[in-house]
Every structure is written in C-alpha cells, then in structure tokens.
C-alpha cells in the first residue's frame, strides 16, 4: 500500500480577537507533500508543535484537511464513504506514543488486542474462539507469552505495554503502520528491543511504516527515507544517508548538531582535559 500526501494544508481556527473581530488562524500544515513507497520505512522528524502528529491525524482522517489530497493506492482518503473508510482503516493502523495512556486500564490484554477484530468483523469474520487464537498468536509474535492473555495493563512494564500496542495494531493484518513516537516513553535498553521487534515484523509481514520521532538516532536506525518538518512545513526530505550526512537546510543541520552524541570526545562543551 503506498501513500501519497499532496499539498496538504491544515488550518486550526484561533480565538476571535474581540467579539466579532478576525480570528488568528494557525497553519498547522502548510502545503505538505510526501510519498511513501510500499514496504519502506519513512521517518518524519520534527520538534514539538511542528505538525507531526497533526499530519498523522489527517492521514487517518481523524482531522479534516483544508486543501490538498491524501491518497492510499490512488483512493482519496478524505472523499471516502463511511463504509469504505472503515475498510481502509483495517489496512492502516497506528501505534501511539504513550503506552501508559493508550491502553484501557479496565480491559484485559485479550480484549484490548481483540477489539480491532471485533470492530472490523465484517471484513475479518472471526468467531470468538478464533479471535482468542489470533490474539494468542499476536502476543507470541511481539514477544509476549500466552499466559499474559487475561492480565490487565498495569501488570506490564512500559516496553511490554508498547508491545501490546503493537500487537493491537497488527491484529487486523494491516499493510501500513503509523508509529507515533513509539519509543519516546521507554528506556534506551528497552527502546532497542522494541526497534528490533519493529524491524523484524516489517521483514516478516512486509509492512510499510510511517515512523514519527523527534529522535534522529532512532530515525536513522529504522528508516530508509526521512522528511524533516518545521512549523508545518517540510524543510527537507530524502534518503536517510543523504539527509544525515549531507543536510541541505540550516534547520536540519541545527537538529543534527543538537543531538547529544554518546561519545564524550565529540561534545561541544568538553574542556580540554
């Protein structure tokens, strides 16, 4: 499944100045265009408030857009009828940033992971026992065990919860996965495991990733292509190697310079010692 975002603009209405005065509109996305090829990993890097998450919400049609088109395999997402949209969403899933907030604390892991199967039952057509089997299979796939099935989210660590979020996203056999900062709430040691899991799943299942992060190291590790977004505009996009080794824009260069390198000798602060 390929995704094309063409000249998308999203404006949020600001507060009115005075009683009938004009609104200060905020342009969250300004003429954004990008194309993601099937089977690739596309990274989107930007700081907080740059429009990363707004773009994903527009792609999932959780927000309306003001102009432009978003095409999945040629179909315009924002023109689809409700039934078509639901079918599309079974092919397009998302893993959220915060594994503590995105799992319902009152549902068992089984119910959390099975929920997409219930919602999309008209396309997956599974009985309750088949769903349980599928959930068990998914848990094994993401490195959890079947005895975890009937536990609750609070019984899991952050890394395990993010695995549950990934299992939930994979439940309906999607082709395209949006990963919205999936590792930013995790320890580096756990982050490495989750990144490796994502890499392995991509190879096994032929998934296409849109990977959102503010961590350039993570993007470089997991992605083939990258786009840098700043204040709603794409400042640069291209192959990961090109962007990282030979950034064209000042903003990208600044971001790269600000990345703390774990080598003490490459610190700008290091006094000659």
């Amino acid at each position, binding site marked *: 499944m390929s995704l094309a975002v063409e000249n998308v603009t999203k404006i949020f209405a600001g507060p009115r100045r005075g009683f009938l005065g004009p609104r200060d509109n905020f342009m969250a996305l300004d003429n954004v265009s990008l194309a993601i090829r099937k089977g690739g990993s596309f990274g989107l890097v930007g*700081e907080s408030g740059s429009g990363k998450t707004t773009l994903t919400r527009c792609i999932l049609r959780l927000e309306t857009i003001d102009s432009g088109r978003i095409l999945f395999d040629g179909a315009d997402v924002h023109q689809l009828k409700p039934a078509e949209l639901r079918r599309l969403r079974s092919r397009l899933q998302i893993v959220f940033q915060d594994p503590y907030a995105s799992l319902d604390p009152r549902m068992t892991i089984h119910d959390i992971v099975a929920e997409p199967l219930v919602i999309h039952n008209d396309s997956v057509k599974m009985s309750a026992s088949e769903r349980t089997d599928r959930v068990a299979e998914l848990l094994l796939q993401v490195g959890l065990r079947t005895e975890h099935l009937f536990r609750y989210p609070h019984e899991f660590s952050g890394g395990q919860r993010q695995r549950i979020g990934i299992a939930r996203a994979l439940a309906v056999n999607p082709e395209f996965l949006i990963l919205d900062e999936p590792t930013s709430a995790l320890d580096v040691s756990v982050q490495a495991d989750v990144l490796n899991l994502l890499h392995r799943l991509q190879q096994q299942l032929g998934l296409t990733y849109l990977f959102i992060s503010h961590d350039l190291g993570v993007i470089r590790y997991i992605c083939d292509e990258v786009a840098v977004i700043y204040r709603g505009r794409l400042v640069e996009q291209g192959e990961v190697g090109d962007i990282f080794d030979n950034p064209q824009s000042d903003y990208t260069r600044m971001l790269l310079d600000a990345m703390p390198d*774990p080598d003490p000798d490459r610190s700008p602060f290091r006094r000659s010692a």
Partner: protein
Amino acid sequence: MPLLEIRDLNLAMKSYEGETHILHGINLTIERGEIWGMVGETGSGKSLTGLSVSRLIPTPPGRYLAGSIRFDGHDVLTASDAEMRALRGRHIGMIFQDPTTNLNPVFRVGTQLLDVAMHAGHADPSVLGVAAGASSRVFKRAAREKAVEMLDKVGIPNAAARIDDYPHQFSGGMRQRVLIAMAMIGKPDLLIADEPTTALDVSVQAQILRLIHDLVAERNIGVLLITHNLGVVAQICTHVAVMYRGRILESGPVRDVLKHPSHVYTKALLNSVPTAHSKRGELRGLGGILPESFA
C-alpha cells in the same frame, strides 16, 4: 572536604507487600566544579538518591537502614527540619523533570520566583544584596530585582515584562528555564537536576545543557545530573555513575567509563543507543531482564 559525600546509603521503602530494600550501599563523592551524571534505567534508584540528598523522601514510608550523607559539613540524614529548610533552596538547588507540573498554574511566574528569593534572602540577606535589618519593602524590591536578573540570565527575553506572566504563557523550554532560575536564585553550592531535559526538544535541550555548563564554570558549583540519556552525560558531565537496581555498578571520570566501560552492564547500555554507525537489527537491548547476580 568534598561538597557532597554519600557513604554506604541504604534505603528501604514500605508498601502493602512489606518493606523493599531499594538502595544498596550507594557511595558517591562530589567536589565543586564537577558535574556528576547518574544514569540508569527506570526504577534503578537514580531519583531516590537525588531526593535523599535534600532529604525529600518522607520517612515513613522510606527508612534509611545505614549510611550517611554529608553536605558541606552538615549531616543531612540527622539534621533538624529547620536546618534542612535552610539548606534547601539556599545551598542545595533542585530542578525536576517535568516543567509543566512543577510550576503552580494559578500563580504568576514572578510570584513563585519571589517566594524562593525571599526564602533564600531570609536565610542570608547577602543573596539579595541587602543589609540584614532592611525593611520589608526594600527586601521585597531587592527580591524582585533578583528574580528579574535570574530570568534574564537563563535567557528569557524581556524578563522584566515576562515575570508577570503565568506559567501557561511560557513554552516548555522557557518553563524549564524558570525552574533553573528558581533553583539558582539562592546561589546554591550543589545543583541536583533530575532529568532536566527529558521533556524538551533536542534544540532546547542543547540550550539548557549549555546553561548548566556555564553556571558550573562561572560559580564553581557541584552538579548531580540524573538522566537516562547517555548522550547528555557524554556531553556535559565530568564524571558518571551507572546505577542498576539500587547499586552503583561503575563510576568515574566520564571518558574512562563511557570509552572503556569495565562493567558488562555499562557496555550493554552503551550498545543499546542507536548511533550513526549502527546497522538495522544490530542494536542490543537488555530486555529489562537481567539476572540478580549481575549487580
């Protein structure tokens, strides 16, 4: 005499399931001019060590089983409450992780800064540059001037006007600067920064790190920087202590530890950070599971 000396610190915490031994014999010595990084995973005891230095762990549920903390000649664990109040804010400054929850949303930034400045001024009027018996009006004016000066110093543009803003009118990076200004206002000798940049963007992080670095160079203070980001440690710390399950596994000058780690855990931790040269699928996580005997 070192600025801060933690000797064989053992802490237990009580919960419904009984008492858990959390810190197992922490030893750490910080001299002036040193920036100590404390790294470790979630739950390794980094923050509890930091909080212990200014005795901010309530007892109970906490209980110190053994050990001592000496700060500039004071025995922190046995000092009276009044003595600790005089130390906190004035001699030991603290910065916490989340700048959004550590400022009170209903008070102006200036009011909150002034509180700290007045507190430090009562303990030592020379902080505000006023005489000991100054009238409260003079005192308050000096405190406000000091607050503006500190905001200016941490790089808030137009500080004299912004001081009357509320926290929500500041961005995340600016709020963190306000907290640093607050921590520095009493001219502390020791700054404890608990994940000061975790909630911030990398570009803002770089500015905050520069600020801390410059403060150390200028005032010759000691810093305990608690973080899980090895990159941050590599950038500004002079020394580093690696914590795991309530123990310090390895500590020393930052170059020795990060370049030539002697402990397997440090090596594993370093291998889990993605760098420019790591190939996909090559990173090694720790899986959160390590044998007890490891520590």
